[in-house]
């Protein structure tokens, strides 16, 4: 019965989330104290409830509102993943914002709006809906970066982020209008047939240029080289909890909507965008890892590292096929869980011991907090992709898809950049573990740590579980890939 609700009424999850967000905004405006707990409780419960609702829902395809909005298997699965990870990310945001003296409750709601926007983008069947959803998600992020109003650097980073984001949005809109102008439609399913039929038609070359603009706009948001320039500044200057949010949720949204765009409207012109992604992924793997090698600042290093990792991920779609797409899905799940755990630990360390700007500020923490410290090491090794760690398995699925297509050059570049990235992650470990400064650092602030610690351990256990019992995850990713490839 519950399953049919979603099919009969359009956009239930988005409605529920936005209504509850708006109501909590009103309540928050009038009631001053202790309102965050109520808000976060409702939002997280709502997200969990929606996950179950989506899990139960009938997954066949259904169009709403003259085909602007679509209920489809890929979107449902993507939303389940998005909501469950957002629940964790929002909870982390909630528990850490207080520690950074960012006490306005609105930030949680703005972050929720980012999730809602992504969810709209994931279930769109028209460039307009898609654009509105994606913009909503990104506008919230620009605000979030400037959350700490007293921090000049943060405001500067927000302005940079906004400017570059606006450029990318402009590019994307221009591309969409080109596509509309040359094809006469903006519906994804119509475009699918259009591009499938008139692939080599010279008259429609403008549509292909438009496609390039749209994809490049998405690459700005991901970000991958050479469109990554905002990332290091934003990561460095924004408050850490905000960074935790913007390295996970927007990335998931962008990756899923990228997969959706590539397979639904642009499927017919595979040959055109494939080489774009091959180039971008190689460039960002090499550039990202080499730049990260030179960074002194920890967060800048992670920014470049994430550029390199996103380049790694893009190899999956570039290779195409069931394996390529499902490997990208698996990679983004592992990656964002890893990021969540690692950044939460970083925040705990920063708030318990001392501010962490440079990599060498990490030294001495391991001695003071061995258990969480070793967990941090495991997360770092996981980023580096050293075998028994979860990150290795995420990488292996992508590499497998590359090797299946006999793209050996890409494979060799990918593994060499993995070695380089191991070098800078080892550099983190060098200061974190190997430095023998028996510097006893005192705790200066205590968070509501038990819940957060449990959450971090929980995240790690999920990661290990996905490694030891990968069947469900593989099945999910495979079914998602199949559902968008053969619709």
């Amino acid at each position, binding site marked *: 019965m519950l399953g049919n609700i979603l099919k009969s009424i359009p956009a239930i999850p988005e409605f529920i989330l936005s209504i509850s967000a708006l109501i909590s905004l009103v309540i928050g405006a009038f009631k001053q104290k202790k309102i965050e707990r109520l808000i976060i409780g409702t939002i997280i419960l709502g997200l969990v409830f929606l996950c179950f609702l989506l899990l139960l829902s009938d997954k066949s395809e259904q169009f709403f509102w003259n085909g602007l909005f679509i209920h489809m298997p890929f979107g449902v699965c993507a939303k389940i993943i998005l909501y469950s990870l957002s629940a964790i990310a929002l909870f982390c945001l909630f528990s850490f914002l207080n520690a950074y003296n960012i006490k306005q409750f609105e930030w949680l709601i703005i972050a929720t709006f980012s999730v809602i926007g992504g969810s709209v983008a994931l279930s769109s069947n028209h460039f307009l809906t898609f654009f509105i959803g994606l913009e909503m998600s990104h506008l919230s992020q620009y605000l979030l970066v400037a959350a700490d109003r007293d921090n000049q650097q943060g405001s500067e980073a927000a302005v940079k982020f906004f400017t570059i984001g606006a450029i990318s949005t402009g590019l994307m809109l221009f591309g969409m209008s080109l596509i509309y102008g040359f094809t006469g439609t903006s519906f994804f399913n119509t475009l699918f047939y259009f591009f499938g039929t008139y692939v080599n038609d010279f008259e429609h070359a403008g549509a292909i240029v438009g496609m390039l603009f749209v994809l490049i706009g998405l690459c700005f948001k991901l970000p991958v080289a050479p469109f990554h320039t905002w990332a290091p500044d934003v990561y460095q200057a924004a408050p850490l909890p905000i960074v935790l949010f913007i390295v996970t949720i927007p990335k998931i949204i962008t990756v899923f909507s990228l997969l959706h765009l590539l397979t639904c409207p642009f499927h017919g012109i595979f040959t055109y965008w494939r080489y774009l992604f091959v180039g971008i992924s190689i460039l960002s793997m090499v550039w990202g890892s080499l730049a990260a090698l030179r960074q002194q600042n920890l967060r800048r290093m992670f920014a470049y590292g994430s550029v390199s990792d996103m380049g790694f991920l893009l190899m999956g779609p570039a290779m195409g096929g069931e394996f390529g797409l499902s490997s990208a899905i698996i990679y983004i799940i592992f990656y964002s869980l890893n990021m969540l755990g690692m950044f939460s630990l970083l925040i705990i360390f920063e708030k318990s011991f001392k501010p962490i700007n440079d990599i060498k500020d990490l030294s001495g923490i391991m001695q003071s907090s061995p258990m969480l410290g070793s967990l941090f090491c495991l997360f770092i*090794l996981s980023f580096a992709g050293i075998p028994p760690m979860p990150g290795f398995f995420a990488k292996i699925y992508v590499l*497998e898809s590359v090797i299946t297509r006999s793209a050996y050059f890409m494979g060799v570049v990918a*593994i060499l950049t993995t070695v380089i990235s191991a070098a800078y992650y080892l550099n983190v470990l060098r200061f974190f573990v*190997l430095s*023998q400064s028996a510097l006893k650092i005192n705790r200066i602030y205590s968070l509501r740590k038990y819940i957060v610690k449990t959450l971090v351990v929980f995240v790690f256990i999920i990661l290990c579980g996905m490694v030891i019992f990968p069947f469900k995850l593989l099945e999910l990713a*495979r079914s998602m890939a199949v559902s968008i490839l053969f619709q």
Partner: protein
Amino acid sequence: MNIPILSLMILLPFLAGFVCTLVRKENSENAKRIAGFVSCINSILAGGLWFYFDSYNPGFQFSEKYLWIKSTCIDFELGIDGISLFFVILSVWLSTLMIFGTWYSVKDRLREYTISCLALQAFMVGSFAATNLFVFYIFFEAVLIPMFLIIGIWGGENRIYATIKFFLYTLFGSVFMLLAILKLYTEAQTLSFIELQDFHISPHLQTLLFLGFMVSFAIKIPMWPVHTWLPDAHVEAPAGGSVLLAGVLLKMGGYGMIRFCLTLFPDASTLFAPYISVLSVIAIVWASLIALAQTDIKKLIAYSSIAHMGIVTLGIFAFKPNALIGSIIQMISHGLVSSALFFGIGMLYDRFHTRDINLYGGLIKIMPGFSIMFIIFSFASIGLPFTSGFVGEILVLIDSFSVRPFITAFACSGMVLGAVYMLNLVNKVFYGKLSAKLGLDSRLDINDYKLHLRLRPFESAVLVVLTISIITLGICTNPIMTPIRRTVSQYYTSHTNVKPIQVDNKIRLQYAR
């Protein structure tokens, strides 16, 4: 016998490591005791493995299989045959000895040290017992993590440089193996070693895959042009780290060559064998010459390890059954001998805080028992008859001589050099006048020194065990020879396309005339 003994041997150290994390910082001695106890149990299990091993069955025994990644047919498979049996035993026994041998020397962050040791033990057993290439790769790489920590935290002065070099060097090699494994998987749709044995790979592809695997193993073992990480790692590592590095980690390279390169890519191995033999001989002579010039004892032993591993690769790529058996025995013996030497050096370093050969002298007067055992180890390292070093070396050299006489002659010159540097070491450290530079208290007389410097119980126990096993292995080799021979000869009958290479026909003909 349906006990999953191999997975038990992997899981036990992990569980013990987990228990160690619960030990409080104040009582970190307890972690050491837990580790010692569990390692003893594991050693007994390893002994049981040997006892129940059917020497006349050339296939995999104690096999286990657990479904893992179902849709891709990558399963968690374990099993041992005559080749891997002794490597499993060696790694368990040596890591047990390592825990007892460094019982007194590690004091800083003891808990983390024991956890690393236990993890290392589990990963080593796993990598030798894995019969699935993917599982093997995971364990093979995982070994790097605890070793990275052991060298990096408890190492010498330049430890961070050494450990990062070690890690990146080996990682660089093994990612190529990863690509090769993935390619193999896309070709054969399975990574189970037993199924892969019957899978025919085209010669061209074999060449590529062989190179991928070989880069990784050559760095691990290490062969001549890529050996530079080893001296650094050895010199900076603590005694226990050096023991396992030389004793077990290097053997993973040789084991991998035998298990994967020879069996899966026979054509490519034949193709590359001459080049690899040349590289091994260069390694033997070059490393021995460098060892001659060393003043740091650890560096000397490290270079001698490279020379010994050169003999191993020479034997592996001679394509003769006896040479193969010889290289396996050489690896096991080197595992015992070099780790014994590193234990000895560690004990010397604990007492005198220097590794410079020139500062030592006349130790036999004040540490007679220790000196005698150390001298036995040195002789075993030279390859004197009645020590374990002799058996492997002679088997390799005899068979290799029949295939490549010219190259092997050079390898023999390496043996002479080996005698030179080892005897030089023994001479300078143990004989002559009691050195005044050691910082010994001049007020004490010799008996007081003996009391002061005597080996503590666990230390002497470890050294005695190693001495006994080295000599036993040199005198009666049969218990380990039989299982190895059975598996190796089975390998030679099933891979009939592996023949001695014809490069030396002319020379052979000359002899015939």
